[in-house]
């Protein structure tokens, strides 16, 4: 039962990802990506990580993708940004290499040289309170640094997009 | 007094900073400050003269040792010391620098402060090379000398200065990188987490650190490349004439006077001490290169029309003697080589000075632009003659003492022999040919309209040449104190090269 649910979600996620890459319209791409993010969020739930699933939806599917859509609209570059192709031969190479990567990963996963310990009984490790305790004790410093990082990113984004005055074009 | 060496090494760099950054320093005073500063360094180095109590010439081991851990993770020490091999080269450096700076009084008129700063910084680098006993520290000083020289030629040089500097820099740098590789290889192979040269040499002599024969030879060659380019040994010499022709007079003086000696010193200190077996193996081959260089440099010097180029090629020839003496691998040869390095520094430095003096007056270095200087500039010509004769190797002057000692070493060396000495002596004949040929055309002959107006040597110029000439005579007539101070160290070195060599 669970495995069936996993397979459906996985296929949905993969399908959304493929569609994202193949779409000619950037807006479509963004929407496919949102779908993909939802799929991943569902998988997080399956993995006993409910808090992360929520974060995934709010931050990724919500904030980040909205930002993407904003920019796409702002630049008006939904379509027609693909005329110039400097590396026409790169697509087949990329596909072959990608396939190679998947095969390699699969081989390594399912025919491991050393036996892998079996999956342990899941605990409620993904509960928000457990995460929060960990985050605010052991990982306090990284957490604080992350906040600084966000602030810097914020300022950086503002500075970069500010209209430069005449005469000092970058 | 155990910080004396550090003081001598770092004081010039401090001087460089002062000259460069002191507010409100005019060009005129900058020259004087640099001069006084370098003189102070010279005075500080005077106690090093063997026999004055600080440095004991009768001891073979390193003296005035300063050793402080520096980068302890890699076992790098700040390790300065001096022994009989380096003592005269250190004194040569501190002695020549004030004279060189004196020569900037006339020769340099643009960006004076930067020039003086580079000169002083260069002095730090050169002294560091002679004094560092830690391979890593040595390498740093070694490369550091490149930088000021690069700018000295590149900014104040002649018309083709960019070509000359780039060539000089790349050539020496490329070769030095090989040396760096060898240094790292030695460090790794030894596995004692130390770059200390004396310790490594000690381990090699006690067979605690045994290098594979083939590997030892390769590492020898890596060191050899760096030093051979610097010396420069034929056929690695082609950067030298370009660098010399383009460099301003003070640059040439310091280049010929001290920088070339870094190579010869490196041969003795590193190749001979670290790789006795490879030294014995390669000695004949290097001897052949040296002899070719002696004759080739002299021969080609004869065809030059530019006086400075002539002197530059003569350097190739003369430094060939130094290499020959070193790779005689016996005490006499090495004695001669070390003294000859000092001699060459004095004589060729002086030669570049005298060339610079007439260049200042005539703004030409073409031999054909001169004639009859003996008549219009008698004092100048008298001193020039003395210096030229010293370069030719006239007995009673310094050049002869060095060359003859080298020849004796070469002849009696089990690795070289009479053929090498005979060909070396041909170089001595040729030295007379090209230098007298130059003398005949520049100093002798009729006074032309252009040369008639040339005034004789000024007091300033006299003050540059007099100390050099005094040393030329002193070393020529009484070189014994110079030899005695290096005797013990050189004998110990030769003993390390193998039992065969201790005898002669």
């Amino acid at each position: 039962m669970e495995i069936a649910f996993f397979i459906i979600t996985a296929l949905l996620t993969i399908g959304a990802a493929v569609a994202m890459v193949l779409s000619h319209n950037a807006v479509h791409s963004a929407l496919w990506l949102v779908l993909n993010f939802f799929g991943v969020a569902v998988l997080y739930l399956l993995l006993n990580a409910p808090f992360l699933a929520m974060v995934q939806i709010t931050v990724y599917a919500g904030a980040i993708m909205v930002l993407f859509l904003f920019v796409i609209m702002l630049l008006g570059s939904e379509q027609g940004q693909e005329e110039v192709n400097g590396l026409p031969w790169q697509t087949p190479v990329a596909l072959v290499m990608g396939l190679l990567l998947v095969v390699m990963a699969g081989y390594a996963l399912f025919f491991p040289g050393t036996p892998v310990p079996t999956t342990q009984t899941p605990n409620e490790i993904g509960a928000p309170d457990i995460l929060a305790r960990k985050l605010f004790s052991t990982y306090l410093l990284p957490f604080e640094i992350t906040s600084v990082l966000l602030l810097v990113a914020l300022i950086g984004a503002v500075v970069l997009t500010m209209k430069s005055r005449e005469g000092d074009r970058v | 007094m155990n910080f004396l060496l550090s003081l001598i090494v770092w004081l010039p760099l401090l001087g460089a900073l002062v000259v460069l950054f002191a507010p409100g320093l005019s060009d005129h005073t900058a020259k004087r400050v640099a001069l006084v500063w370098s003189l102070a360094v010279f005075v500080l180095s005077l106690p090093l003269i063997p026999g004055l109590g600080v440095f004991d010439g009768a001891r073979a081991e390193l003296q005035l040792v300063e050793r402080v851990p520096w980068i302890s993770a890699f076992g790098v020490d700040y390790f300065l010391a001096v022994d009989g091999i380096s003592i005269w080269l250190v004194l040569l450096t501190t002695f020549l620098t004030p004279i060189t700076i004196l020569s900037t009084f006339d020769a340099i008129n643009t960006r004076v402060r930067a020039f003086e700063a580079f000169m002083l910084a260069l002095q730090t680098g050169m002294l560091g090379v002679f004094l560092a006993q830690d391979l890593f520290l040595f390498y740093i000083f070694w490369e550091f000398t490149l930088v000021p020289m690069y700018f000295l030629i590149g900014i104040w040089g002649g018309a083709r200065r960019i070509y000359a500097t780039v060539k000089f820099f790349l050539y020496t740098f490329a070769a030095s990188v090989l040396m760096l590789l060898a240094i790292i290889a030695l460090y790794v192979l030894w596995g004692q987490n130390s770059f200390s040269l004396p310790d490594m040499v000690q381990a090699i002599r006690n067979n605690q650190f045994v290098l594979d024969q083939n590997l030892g030879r390769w590492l020898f060659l890596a060191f050899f490349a760096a030093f051979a380019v610097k010396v420069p040994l034929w056929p690695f010499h082609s950067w030298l004439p370009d660098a010399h022709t383009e460099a301003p007079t003070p640059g040439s003086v310091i280049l010929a006077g001290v920088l070339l000696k870094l190579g010869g010193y490196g041969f003795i200190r590193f190749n001979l001490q670290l790789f006795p077996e490879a030294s014995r193996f390669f000695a004949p081959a290097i001897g052949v290169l040296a002899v070719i260089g002696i004759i080739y440099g002299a021969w080609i010097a004869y065809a030059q029309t530019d006086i400075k180029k002539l002197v530059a090629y003569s350097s190739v020839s003369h430094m060939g003697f130094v290499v020959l003496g070193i790779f005689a691998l016996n005490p006499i040869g090495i004695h001669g080589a070390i003294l000859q390095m000092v001699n060459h520094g004095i004589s060729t430095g002086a030669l570049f000075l005298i060339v610079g003096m007439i260049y200042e007056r005539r703004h030409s270095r073409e031999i054909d632009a001169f004639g009859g200087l003996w008549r219009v500039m008698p004092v100048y010509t008298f001193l020039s003659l003395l210096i030229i004769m010293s370069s030719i190797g006239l007995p009673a002057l310094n050049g002869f003492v060095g060359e003859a000692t080298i020849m004796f070493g070469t002849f009696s060396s089990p690795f070289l022999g009479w053929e090498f000495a005979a060909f070396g002596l041909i170089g001595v004949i040729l030295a007379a040919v090209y230098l007298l040929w130059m003398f005949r055309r520049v100093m002798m002959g009729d006074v032309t309209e252009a040369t008639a107006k040339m005034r004789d040597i000024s007091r300033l110029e006299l003050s540059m040449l007099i100390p050099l000439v005094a040393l030329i005579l002193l070393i020529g007539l009484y070189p014994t104190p110079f030899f005695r101070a290096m005797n013990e160290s050189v004998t110990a070195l030769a003993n390390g090269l193998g039992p065969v060599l201790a005898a002669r």
Partner: protein
Amino acid sequence: MEETLFTLIPAIIVLPLLGALINTFLIRDGRRAGMVASLACGAAFVVGLAAFALLAGLPHEEQTHIDLTLWQWIDAGPLDVPFGFLFDPLSAVMVLLITGVGSLIHVFSIGYMAHDARPVRYFVYLNLFVAAMLILVLANNYLLLFLGWEGVGLCSYLLIGHSFERKEARYASMKAFVMNRIGDFGLMLALLALFQHFGSLNYGVIFPRAAELAGQQINWVLGPTALASAIAFCMLIGVSGKSAQIPLWTWLPDAMAGPTPASALIHAATMVTSGVYLIVRSHSIFLQTQAISNLTVYVGVATAFVAASIAIGQYDIKRVLAFSTVSQLGFMVAAAGMGAYTAAIFHLLTHGVFKALLFLGAGSVIHGAHDVQDMRRMGGLRSAMPTTFLTYMAGTLALSGIPIWAGFFSKDEIIGSAFHGTRFGTYPVSGTILIITAALTAFYMARQVSLVFLGQQRDTSYHAHESEPIMTIPLWILAVGSTIAGIINFPGLHFLDHFLEPVFEVGHAVQEPLEFNIPLAIITVVLALAAGWVAYQVYGKRQWKKTFRDPLARYLGVFFEGFEQRWYADDVYDTMVVRPFKATASFLSRILDPLGIDGLVNGAAWLVGFGGRGLRRAQTGYVRSYTLVFFLGVIAVLGYFGFATVR
């Protein structure tokens, strides 16, 4: 007594050195400089005389042990050379010759150089020369001898180039120095070999052990050779350079471009004889090798003959004397090669006196004739310069080997040795050639006297005058010397033989003093007189025009042309050595160095640049292609680890 000598010997050298220093730094006036220089040299002579007297007073066996070291000159590990002097009978006579003749020449120079542009410099060189020459003969080891050897070479260079405005002076000075250097090359090589064997360069170490050299075999250019031969051969090269022997003789005639008194001192009386001195000093080495001693004789005889023949064909008054000097040096070298060392030194001494006289006489003529040197423009100067003529005649007779004059005795001893035999055997052919050469000597000297002093003045454009007393007095003294100097080794008395005996005892080279060979002497003298008479008949009787061609040219044809052109030796050297040398230098400098060696360097630089241009094309600027490469790298790394773990 020895202590006194120990103070006197350095003084001999220091005095002329002091003169040179004073003149360099304090004196600006030519005449005063001359006084100082003469005084310095004269004082050295007086001191030398005192030292000589002291030495003569010592017991026989102690005379070779006056050895003093002033200081350690070179002390480089095993190489240990003192700055030390050895005052033995051989050095003593050399010192007297150098300072004695030197003083007279100094005095003469005061007058001769009165109108020179740079008299002070001249006297400095002259003093310096005397000092260097004294070091050469007084040294107690070979390296110090070499110092003097090259020192005199330098002074010779400076004096020849004294009037450097003249082209021939410039070229001659350099030629002299370089040719001497080629000779020094040989000498230095000999020193190296000596040191290699003995571990020392001191005479005191080498000579007693010289016999070892004969046994040692070495492999070198000439194949397996006795070490003694190799060393002696190398020394012979040095001798050939310094004493102007074949093949390095061409510099000496050119050296006449220097002031005449300098030629008298350096290129006649003293410096050029130092090669002979070297052989005599090293007799214990030469005695070990018959082959090279023979070679020395042949070189000497050949030089003597060739130079004498050239002297016949010269018109320049100094040139004749120069070739005569070369010829006489050949006599000495031949004698030294035969092992007739005393004879060589005897001739060296007498020749020093009478050749100095002849040169000074020539100088007086040139001075009086207002710098005319071409003998064809002279003639009849006897009346204008009676003193010069008389003294010149004394020199001529001495040189021609006419009895009672000095040259007769010394030359005869050499020829006598050739026939009488030495430890190397007899040299009859060489002896015969030497007799012919002696006749040629008489011929060219008679020719010279006839052309210069006899007959009528051919070129009347100048008014010849006798020189001032300061020049004629030295001439008189030397003339007296030339007349009576034979006494120093007069047959039957053998002063010199006995005096030098201790020196040769070291190498066991003492020979029975040669007794006078009357038939031989008669033959020689008759031949010389006949040659002189013929020359007088040819040149002294007729009135020639001032640009005449020598009458002998008619009879001797190409041979005379050879005489005139010095047997084309200079041209041969020019084509075979000088030109190829210059061409190679130009080739090296224009082609090999910039295109070959530097070409390799720049080629390497170009190669790097080329590779860089190639690699630059990989930098497409497309971020996606960089990513692809990155991705490939990731796959490669993953693959590597994957396989590593699977295995």
